[in-house]
């Protein structure tokens, strides 16, 4: 597939990389139909985010069509469904997730990556798509395909009749603004 990769400060490139595969039963693969560049992506572009490695695929605001579903069934999502994917990854099962604090998910940052954020911030943080190795090391969605883990928790199924442009911002800013208003 084609994907936008980070190579270093002020150096991002569209290149051909391997397609993603389902690794865990609760994951899905999406064919990305729309993606946005976030202001936070500029921090990566300007090299302000530590633990980026050359070749990392960028993008945490995206949506798409389900093309493959893991063995666990993805909470009812089916091939062909359109979904918007919120940027931070939540397992839905740990204490922070059960109390609605998805951004503090204990489990979505792989064990060897979470160490870095514990040292940097004093506590582990959840995984985020395309946002450095200390925040999970996940391939992002500025690509033709993306793997979405724990797909039965956060992804939002898009009802028919709504265009990509009408719902894409549920991946980040709209959803988070709503979240902040609810929890303020």
């Amino acid at each position, binding site marked *: *597939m084609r*994907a936008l*990769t980070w*190579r270093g400060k002020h150096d991002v*490139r569209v*290149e*051909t*990389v*391997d*397609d*993603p595969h389902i*690794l*865990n*039963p*609760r994951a899905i693969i999406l064919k990305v139909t729309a993606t946005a560049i976030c202001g936070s992506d500029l921090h990566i572009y300007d090299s302000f985010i530590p633990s980026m*490695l*050359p*070749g*990392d*695929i960028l993008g945490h605001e995206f949506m798409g069509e389900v093309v493959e579903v893991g063995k*666990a069934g993805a909470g009812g999502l089916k091939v062909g469904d359109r979904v918007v994917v919120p940027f931070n990854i939540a*397992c*839905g*099962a*740990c*204490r922070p997730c*059960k*109390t609605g604090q998805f951004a503090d998910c*204990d*489990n*979505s*940052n*792989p*064990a*060897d*990556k*979470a*160490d870095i954020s514990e040292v940097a911030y004093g506590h582990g943080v959840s*995984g985020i798509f395309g946002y450095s190795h200390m925040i*999970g*090391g*996940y*391939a992002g969605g500025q*690509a033709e395909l993306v*793997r979405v*883990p*724990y797909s039965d928790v956060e992804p939002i199924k898009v009802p028919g009749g709504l265009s990509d442009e009408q719902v894409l911002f549920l991946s980040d800013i709209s959803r988070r603004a709503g979240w902040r208003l609810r929890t303020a």
Partner: protein
Amino acid sequence: MGRGTEVHALIEYDAPGGRLGRLIAKALQHELNTQARRELRRFKQLMETGEITRSDGPRGGQRYQDED
């Protein structure tokens, strides 16, 4: 709501090569304390979510190795 179950592991061992060996192991991320912490975290993931979280995925980079 309870805060869950705390699991602590106490492991006593003699690092091969003494202090220096331990330092080298730590630099290579093979030090026992690091490994045990990560294994406990994976155990928690497996217990709570039914899977061990992985993010290894497609990466770019090879194509431009020679150019840079």
